[in-house]
Every structure is written in C-alpha cells, then in structure tokens.
C-alpha cells in the first residue's frame, strides 16, 4: 500500500479579516489535491484574491490552519512565507503582470534570480538558457530582449506564464488571467497554461468569474460554498 500524496492546499477553520472584528473570509475546509487543475469561481468582491493571499502566505489568518505544499503557513515567519511563496509558487495576475522597466528576458528570469530552489529545478543548465527554452516554447523568441511595454496583452500574458512556471514551482496560481482576452485567445491561453503546468507537474488554481471555462478543469470550487462570508 502506498502512502497517499498530501494535498497541495489544505485550509481548515480559517478566519481572516483585514480588521480583526470584521472577517471577510471564513473557510471550514478547502482541499486542493496535488497535480489537479482547479477552477475557483465567484462574483467580483467575493474574496477570491483574499483567499489566494492566504494560500500564498501574504495574509495570515486570525484563526485556523493553512497547510500549503507540506508547510503550515501559520507557524512560519513572514520572510519564511515569502521564501516559500517565491520558490514553490508561480503567480499570474489578471493584468499588469510584468515589471514594466524590465525586458521579457529579465522578467522571466526573475524568480530564478531570487530563489535558489527554482534555479536547482531548471531543465536547462543556466538561467539564460532556461529562459530562452521557455520563451521559445511559448512562441515569444523574437521578443526576448524587448521591453514588456511594447508587447500586446496576449503576449504579456504568455510572458507571465513563462515567469510563473520557470524553475518548476509545485503550485501555479492564476488570478483572472483571461479577463483581458477575447474568447478565442482565452481558449488558446488555457491550452498553453495546461500544457506548461503539466510539463512542470504543477497543481493549478485558476480563479475566474467566467464560468464558460470551468468545463476544462478537473475540479470546480465556488467561493460561496467554501467561505461562509463569500456567498
């Protein structure tokens, strides 16, 4: 009998509020199995980004347990949580994903430059080659040394994917990444994201309020069902 793989994310009895007296999120239990592609949905302002803040360790709950990638975040100091987030998680924002004054190459390379563990998990021997490999994989090889301000929205989102998956993080979180894309590009973006997450063997948490995409995911979670406050 093999020992069961621990879940990528396991939240229990979590209560969080920006102000201690008014909780904005109250989660009895949330489990995201490792390697799964999870679709998290809910209306705007329901606390989706706040939940991601708890999973990534940006926020600390007032109560409860946040077990993420085998680490209990509530027992960790802020610098330790920052390190855990940077080395084990990739993050894709809705828009304005990139550092505006860096080139495509510099943006993609950032996680590996900040975190030794991401460097150790690279496929190519150097950061430079790893960046080139990923950027080629995403069809952006002609844009490598271009400033990111000069890219189209679709191209910027692809650069964001590359930066999120470089150095094979165990968890990739995408916070409404397709909201600025049209329907065709949304599907193409999703195809690419699935492919690279699979290559990196990463769990994917995809947050959106657009339910037309949810069919393509292994699991679907409604924030209203998870959180008593988010309904």
């Amino acid at each position, binding site marked *: 009998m093999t020992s069961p793989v621990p879940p990528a994310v396991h939240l229990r009895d979590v209560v969080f509020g920006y102000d201690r007296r008014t909780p904005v999120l109250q989660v009895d239990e949330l489990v995201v199995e490792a390697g799964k592609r999870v679709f998290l949905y809910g209306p705007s302002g329901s606390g989706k980004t706040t939940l991601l803040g708890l999973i990534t360790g940006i926020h600390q709950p007032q109560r409860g347990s946040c077990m993420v990638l085998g680490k209990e975040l509530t027992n960790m100091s802020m610098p330790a949580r920052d390190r855990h987030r940077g080395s084990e998680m990739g993050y894709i*924002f*809705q828009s304005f994903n990139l550092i505006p004054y860096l080139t495509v190459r510099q943006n993609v390379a950032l996680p590996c430059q900040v975190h030794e563990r991401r460097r150790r998990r690279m496929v190519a021997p150097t950061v430079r080659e790893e960046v080139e490999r990923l950027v080629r994989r995403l069809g952006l090889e002609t844009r490598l040394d271009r400033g990111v301000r000069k890219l189209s929205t679709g191209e910027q989102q692809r650069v964001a994917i590359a930066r999120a998956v470089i150095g094979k993080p165990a968890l990739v979180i995408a916070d409404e990444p397709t909201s600025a894309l049209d329907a065709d590009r949304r599907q193409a973006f999703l195809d690419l994201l699935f492919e690279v997450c699979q290559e990196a063997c990463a769990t994917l948490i995809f947050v959106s309020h657009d339910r037309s995409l949810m069919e393509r995911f292994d699991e679907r979670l409604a924030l209203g069902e998870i959180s008593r406050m988010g309904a």
Partner: protein
Amino acid sequence: MIIPRLAYESLRSRKFTGGLTVFSIAFSVLLLVSVDRIRQGTQVGFEGTLSQTDLVVGARGGSLPLLLYAVFHIGVANNDISYEAYQHFARHPAVLWTIPLSMGDSHRGFRVVATDDNFYEHYRYRGNHAIQLAAGARPEGIFDAVLGDTVASELHYRLGQKIVLSHGLGGSFLKHTANPYTVVGILAHTATPVDRAIYITLWGDEAMHLGWEHGAPPLQPIPASQIHKSDLHIGTISAFLLRTKSRMSTLFLEREINTYKAEPLTAIIPALTLQDLWGVLSAADIALSLVSGAVLVVGLLVMLTALYTALNERRREIAVLRALGLRTRQIFALFVLESSLISAAGAALGVAGAYGLLFAVRVPVENHYGIPLVMVSVSSRILYYIAAVIGSGALLGFIPAFRAYRNALVDGLNAG
C-alpha cells in the same frame, strides 16, 4: 544582487524625472562645493603668494590694507616710508634680507612695482619657489622693465618693446611719455599677483618722477639720455618685505619697527593678517553656504516628490515583486536604494561640475580680479558634504519606502 539591479533598471526607465532630480541635487551640490572650493582655493592662493617673508613693513596704518597693497596689489598705500628708515632696518643685525617695494604707477591697468635685485634673489612663493626669468634679464638700466607673465601674454609684449608708464593707478591721463621703458625681461608664470605686475628699478621710479613737484609733472621733461644714476636720490618707498635671521626674533623685531621713534611704521606678520582677512570673508562664506544649503534641501525635496508621486503607479509592480517572493524588507530596500542612487549620482555630478567650473574660471578670475585661485583637492569637508547628501537622500527614501511597505501589506496580491 537583484535589488540593486531592479533599482538601476527602474531608475533607467524613468530617465527624464530621474535626470531632473539628479540635476537639481547636482546643482545644489555644485553650489555648495564651489563656495567651499573657491574659499579654500583663494586661501591657498593667497597664502601661497608669499612665503619665507616674516614681516611686511609700511607706513603707519591698518595691517590688512598694508598686506593687500604690498603683496596682492589691491588698494593703495596712504603714505610712503623714507628710504633711510628702510635702510636702517635692512642693515639691522637680526635681518637676513629685505625687498623694497615702491608702487604708484601703472601701465594699461597693470601695476608698476619698483624694487631692486633682492626681489629676484629672495622673493619666494608657494614654499620655496623663486622668481625665474622666462626670457631676457633682470633690469639693470634706469629705464629697463621686466614684465610679469600675464602682462606679457595679455599685451603681447616682447623683449625690446618700448612702453610708456602712467602716473597713478587706473589709466591716469598723466603719462610718462618723455621716458619710455624698454622690456628687458619676462618672468616665468607664478600663478600669483607677480604675474600681473611690471617690475622696474628703484632708480627707474625716481627717474620717472624727476622734476615732479607736488604730484605735477615738470613743464619741460628731462630726456632719458640726460638722466644718470648719480643724479638720482631714492627718497621714499611704499613698503618692504623682511626676513629675519632667526624666526625667534620676528616678534621682537615687529615690536621694534612698530615703536620706531624716527618714523611711524607698521610691521605685520603676513600669515596672521591673512587670518584677519579670512575672518572678514567668513560672514560672506556663511551666507553663501546657507543659500547653497537651502538649494540642496529643495533638491532633496524634489527627489522626495518624484519618488512619492511614482508610488501609485508602482503599486502593481510591488504586488508582482511580493508574489515573486521578495520580502517587504527587500521592497523597502529597493526604494531606499533608488533614492540613494539618485543622491549619489547628484553628488558625483555636482562635485565634478564644481571642479570643472573652478578649472574654467580659475584663469579669468586670476586675470581680471587678481585673486589667486588654486585647484585644491577634495577636502574632508567635501567628503562630509557628499556623505550628508547621500545620507539625507537615503533617509528621505525611507518615506516612500515606508508608504510602499504599508501599501504592500494592505494590497497583498491585489495588483489589478
């Protein structure tokens, strides 16, 4: 190393506002450093003009005017001293050498100084530098003249040239046209007021004024060919420089000269009188430094405004950096480093600009105002200024950094 890189790239992306901020800080540092360097450069220049002279002696009067007219050729002597009094002290057993100086005439704005061989033998500047002849020889004849380096170069005079001296200073209409002088020598460059003077002999000075009565020229000038040294009698001089055989006797001799019964004289120790001069000038120096300091504060506030107004557009950037695992401490460091880099660049540019300016104005200032301005190296005071500018830049960086830190905590990952 990621934070310095990010700070550099971030500043590079904001070249225009960053450049303006650097420029405003550089400008204030330039003012501050220039004031300081000019002050020290002038001090070094003044102090270097005369060395190895223990006493400057003139007619009874203020010590500062005596030093200024005798050594720096600024202002005029109110009274002369008799040649007998000069000779009395020149022969004093405690005296090693003396240099007589007689002034009062000019040529096209340059002073004429009558002196004797002692000037060429004993005059020293900047330590042990002696007067050198770049061309020709010392004046021997009554109507011989030797030109300072600046006089020769500005007036394009050569050896053998005849020059007519004016009576008094500042382009007097009374000219000694009857007896033109011949340029027999040109002095090497000294970067002191010596360069801006014309040197003749004491005999020449007497010959020029032969037949003059109560400041008026004779009706019939005596031609040069009819004047011989034996006809001349040196009556007065303006001042003299003196070196004692032993430094110990300087104070004693100073008192003896100041209490000389035969004639009211003033003897001063040049270094001490220069200190009085710096005392007079220090009020102006303080005022200028205060203005420069105020400009610097404005420059730093411009930087604070630029960094602070950029904060809102940088909220997303900070959210991305946090998602990438950068600690809040590192984000804090990013802002402080940016402000430090701006102020360091401003300080470096300001110091370089100040030295460039000093180098450019050095010669014109010396030529037009006779103020010797020496290029002095970076002093501890300048290093203190630089440290203060970078330090205050870094400190001011804490304000937007703190705000960014607070924003990062509130915004979390909410980058949209």
